[in-house]
């Protein structure tokens, strides 16, 4: 089939009479104050909350009151559920599902120009990607402020800023917010924005489901934050029963928050997987798919299959709290271990939901700044699939010290150590690409290199932790805390920053300031390590997690860690300052391809048109033939009939 070579074009626009601007568009979608946007969503959510609360009190008056709180758990749960439904109604996410009941197909979507489109339910994956950027930064900023509060409390073991109850609420909220954010931090903004561009598609497979995934993600933020006015929850982000069962009304926000975010995660994974499977441009065989897309596909598979377990676990928890089932109540025939198993069956794949997109970004960036082909591309792709598959078989290592059958430990120790093999593949692919390379130390590359440094420490300590004897000694302490901050923050967040600095010029048409970017990197890298490395020592010396006081002899190390954490927080202020400076105060127009990348996403026009590519491109090879003499052209972009061909220098030549 000829797609982008010389071919006659049929203009759909010219085949019909010029449409009126709002022809076939319902009033709810037209621009203006009467249309549906974030404002109407907030109003509908508030109304939904009030209605749900009233309904709960009406239906279950006199029934399940939460002990010592004077609150009705059913009313609280229904209030939050109806608030989410109201939010979705208000933003317009339910227009189409309701219209389908009478057989209507989708309304025409008006293209809203200007900033207001970012506050609407939109079908353009690029707008959704940018919405996600703001959304995840909101999560990150909130979670970061809570982290500052934690480190402030830990400045002294005897002088306290918060009481023990408030401290554990802050720790729990910090962990939950950060973990929810981390599941979407790369797939949401960069996956949604760039996957269609990288596979040569003009669209997402299910654009409404994509938009739904974002707006319910924001609803989840509201639900989890509602825990604070309800008095928080004392369980940490893992929500372990039986503490969960004994907790106050804030626990419902935690359980529902995870279920709501889980819906968004499933929707996002489902849509991206279907897009990658079905909308790859002609010629983009599986061996030519960019490595970032492989990472996102593996992540999408994990999101689609692992998250339903989280949803089920959350649902059972809400049922325990409201209709008084006993899933997690051992005294009534349930089991607190059931939560632990369900939670970690999702929770460990979630670690790779967070890690894999980071690996993908780093592997995508390395060839650009080393001007070398990606070393062992197929091994990297196989490693990602291997990690995704094995991640379903390791969850019990989180329960080594819980009293599980000791005979189970060696099996899960083995599977956990096994997963380090495909992870090692990906690491070695990076090292192979760096080998004898002339590296350009641009800001994205600095962040990418830091991922290797941080993840090496996080990964090696992970191998220690998978060993039962070591695990017995260090579980539940700061050693574990430091390990997962090294993998998640040191791996994922640094990779996100690498991706953001790398792709923001394409997303916004503006370059980030290099000097400020370097300041951001060095402060973040140095103070990240100074914050978290001492925690390994603190953990080995016996300080437990989630406790607001500690032994006096650990104060110096804790103070060192706290002061470093404040400076780490300051590094994020540099990032925000850079963002404001480069985007609004003194914007510098980005060149069409500032890094001379071969990636297909850089070959489209700037700014990217609504339909991404003027013609659907025909892919001729993979995008990693850097510095290869006589390398084949990457793609036939089909513009102007003869077809633009992108050479291995990253330049488009006709």
């Amino acid at each position, binding site marked *: 089939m000829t797609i982008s070579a010389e071919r006659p074009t049929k203009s759909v626009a010219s085949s019909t009479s010029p449409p009126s601007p709002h022809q076939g568009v319902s009033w709810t979608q037209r621009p203006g104050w009467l249309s549906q946007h974030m404002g109407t969503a907030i109003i509908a959510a508030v109304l939904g909350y009030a209605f749900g609360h009233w309904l709960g009190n009406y239906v279950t008056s006199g029934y399940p009151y939460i002990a010592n709180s004077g609150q009705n758990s059913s009313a609280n749960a229904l209030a939050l559920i109806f608030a989410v439904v109201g939010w979705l109604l208000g933003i317009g996410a339910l227009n189409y599902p309701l219209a389908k009941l009478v057989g209507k197909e989708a309304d025409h979507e008006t293209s809203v120009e200007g900033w207001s489109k970012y506050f609407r339910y939109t079908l353009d994956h690029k707008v959704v990607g940018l919405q996600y950027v703001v959304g995840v930064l909101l999560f990150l900023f909130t979670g970061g402020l809570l982290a500052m509060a934690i480190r402030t409390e830990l400045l002294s073991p005897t002088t306290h800023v918060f009481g023990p109850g408030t401290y554990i609420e802050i720790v729990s909220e910090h962990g939950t917010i950060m973990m929810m954010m981390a599941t979407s931090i790369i797939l949401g903004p960069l996956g949604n924005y760039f996957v269609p561009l990288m596979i040569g598609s003009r669209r997402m497979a*299910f654009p409404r489901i994509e938009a739904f995934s974002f707006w319910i993600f924001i609803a989840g933020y509201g639900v989890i934050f509602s825990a604070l006015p309800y008095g928080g929850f004392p369980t940490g982000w893992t929500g372990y029963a039986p503490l969960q069962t004994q907790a106050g009304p804030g626990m419902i926000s935690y359980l529902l928050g995870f279920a709501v975010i889980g819906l968004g995660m499933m929707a996002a994974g489902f849509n991206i997987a*279907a897009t990658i499977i079905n909308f790859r441009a002609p010629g983009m065989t599986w061996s030519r798919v960019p490595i970032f897309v492989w990472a996102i596909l593996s992540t999408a598979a994990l999101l689609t299959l692992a998250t339903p377990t989280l949803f089920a676990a959350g649902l059972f928890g809400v049922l325990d709290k409201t209709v008084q089932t006993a899933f997690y109540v051992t005294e009534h025939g349930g089991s607190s271990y059931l939560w632990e198993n369900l939670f970690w069956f999702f929770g460990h794949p979630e670690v790779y939901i967070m890690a894999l997109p980071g690996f993908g970004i780093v592997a995508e960036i390395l060839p650009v700044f080393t001007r070398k082909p990606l070393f062992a591309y197929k091994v990297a792709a196989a490693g990602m699939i291997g990690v995704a598959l094995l991640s379903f078989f390791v969850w019990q290592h989180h329960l080594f010290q819980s009293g599980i059958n000791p005979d189970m430990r060696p099996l899960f120790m083995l599977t956990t150590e096994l997963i380090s093999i495909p992870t090692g593949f990906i690491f070695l692919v990076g090292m192979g690409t760096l080998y004898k390379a002339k590296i350009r130390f641009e800001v994205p590359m600095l962040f990418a290199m830091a991922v290797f440094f941080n993840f090496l420490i996080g990964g090696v300590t992970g191998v220690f932790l998978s060993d039962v004897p070591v695990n017995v000694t260090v579980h539940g302490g700061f050693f574990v805390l430091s390990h997962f901050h090294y993998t998640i923050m040191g791996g994922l967040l640094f990779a996100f920053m690498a991706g953001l600095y790398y792709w923001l010029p394409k997303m916004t048409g503006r370059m980030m300031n290099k000097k400020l970017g370097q300041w951001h990197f060095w402060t973040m890298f140095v103070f990240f390590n100074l914050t978290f490395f001492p925690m390994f020592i603190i953990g080995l010396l016996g300080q437990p997690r989630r406790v607001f006081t500690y032994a006096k002899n650990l104060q110096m190390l804790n103070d060192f860690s706290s002061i470093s954490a404040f400076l780490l927080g300051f590094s994020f202020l540099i990032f925000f300052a850079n963002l404001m400076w480069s985007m609004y105060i003194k914007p510098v127009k980005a060149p069409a391809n500032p890094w001379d990348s071969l990636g297909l996403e850089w070959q489209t026009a700037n700014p990217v048109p609504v339909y991404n590519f003027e013609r659907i491109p025909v892919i001729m090879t993979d995008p990693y033939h850097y510095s290869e003499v006589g390398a084949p052209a990457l793609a036939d972009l089909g513009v102007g009939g003869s077809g633009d061909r992108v050479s291995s220098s990253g330049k488009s030549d006709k």
Partner: protein
Amino acid sequence: MTDTSRNQKPMSETPEEIEYELRGQIGSIWSGGRLFIGMYTFLLASLAFSYFYLRAANNGLLWRPHNITAPTAYGWTIWGLSLVAAVLVIFGQRRLRSGNVLDWQVAGWVGVACGLVALAAQIWEFTAVPFYPGSSGYASTFIGWSVINIGTLAGATYWLETTLARSHRMRRESGTASPELSSAATARLFRANVASMTYFWGFVAVSGALFLAMFYLL
């Protein structure tokens, strides 16, 4: 599973590109349907895991005291109705393939009725269960299954109803006898949607049989 259209401002497309996009949309409906079933399988597997975990643990000998069971008549009725609906949907799709749209529509609407009655029975069963939700492990998992099955039946019936409603509207809009059978893009997408929906109903019936055995027969 028809959420594949993006009616934005008109653009210039070659016939090949239009066909390529359409194939992508049809493929998305096909693979989306299978992914959805995969997702649902893990949701139901979580419930099944909970069932067998609590059954094996039998904490405080409170898995199922006195071998009490949810009303078996309700269980058979609900599953029987979902089976009938699934068989009708499968039969209807075969008739649609052979060009008998009316047969598909009649089978489909009877299927919707079965789905709604099954849904009502599943909700009404709450008034007839002989135990409190938290009285045992069995009682808890049964309530969990009931809530999930309410969602499943409502979702599957919604999918069937919206497909039928689309069929009627296509007729009205096109003014032709069987627009569902044409080679137009909307008809091809419609048929892909019918195929995915039929597959899901089959899944509902099969998974329902497994849970019927677990909760009412074992």
